[in-house]
């Protein structure tokens, strides 16, 4: 709380400490949601700028990290709405190669099918899936971040997985 109070009074060192403590998780989540480095950077920067501007409003009812994540998810979802939905589909193979680690043991065919299947998930399911299954957030953290009940988070994850299973079931049998 001390750091937050100091940062809200303009102490840059305190704000930097808050940034250092949280930036990796926020950037990772932004990247998972955006899929592009530039967008992930924009979303992360925008998140921290908003937080800085609104530090006075943080009342400590929730953890600072939860508050920060709520802003990050909101910034990313709103930002992605501005991005042409079809742009990712038109992305060149070179870009795709840049995004995906070269030494990945996952078959390219499977990789593409997973990308398509996850992209097709509705935002509300995809966000929970990315946070829980790919980034390891707990349902409690997700629920607080998204402002929903923990049961809703679990239900959305379950639906996301069911949709993925449905779309990728055949492919998985080939690769297992």
């Amino acid at each position: 709380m001390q750091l937050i109070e100091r940062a809200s009074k303009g102490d840059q060192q305190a704000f930097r400490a808050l940034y250092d403590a949280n930036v990796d998780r926020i950037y990772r989540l932004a990247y998972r949601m955006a899929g592009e480095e530039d967008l992930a950077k924009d979303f992360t920067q925008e998140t921290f700028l908003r937080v800085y501007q609104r530090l006075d409003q943080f009342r400590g009812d929730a953890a600072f990290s939860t508050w920060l994540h709520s802003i990050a998810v909101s910034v990313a979802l709103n930002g992605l709405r501005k991005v042409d939905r079809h742009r990712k589909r038109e992305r060149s193979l070179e870009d795709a190669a840049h995004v995906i680690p070269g030494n990945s043991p996952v078959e390219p065919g499977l990789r593409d099918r997973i990308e398509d299947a996850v992209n097709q998930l509705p935002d509300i399911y995809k966000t929970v899936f990315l946070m829980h299954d790919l980034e390891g957030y707990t349902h409690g953290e997700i629920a607080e971040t998204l402002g929903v009940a923990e049961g809703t988070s679990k239900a959305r994850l379950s639906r996301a997985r069911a949709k993925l299973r449905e779309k990728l079931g055949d492919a998985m049998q080939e690769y297992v």
Partner: protein
Amino acid sequence: MSEDPMDRILDAARETYHAPGRTPKEAMWEVIQRGTEAAPGDDVIDLTAVRNARPVRRYRSYAWAAAAAAALVLGIGIGRMTTRVGGDSSLANAADGVPTSLRFAAAEHFGRTESLLTMVRADARQGRIDPMTSTWARGLLVQTRLLIDYGSGAEPAMQELLEDLELVLVQIVGLAGSGSMEGDRTRMELELAVRGVEERELLPRLQAAGRPLGFSGA
């Protein structure tokens, strides 16, 4: 013991789906620092107004959540009664995946949401937002989420509309809840919310869906 295919999907997704590289920490910090130094106080919302409104808004949000849930249950109840009393088999059969009672509740909800969005759009033209909008939008957001959770997924068009609404309503709740339209950033966010409404053609879609058979009858 064979491996669950879902585990394999998750492992592969963790490894390949938008896998983040190293965090460009310093590069981002430079931009953030420039932003924080640029004009302290600019684009910052009116904190006094926010503080003053806080207890009221908090109380009202709980009241609205309860009211939204009650309205939904009531809407479903009315839908059931209407279907039963009217005995209109076309209504009962119209809902391929979504129960007719839920369809009635959704239609009523869409009508109210259309009114809100119309008002927000009109306010945006004048560069302001009504302070009560947040409370109103919060109730509709709760109800939207209830409808999503109640199984609108059986009707893809309804599900898509509800998800689009959820995004816009979250934006409006946050925006109107900020308590003031001072600052370029807040004005820009309002414009973006309105643009979202227009780009997604939410108003015509709501008008079409505002009838109990809006989706299946199309």
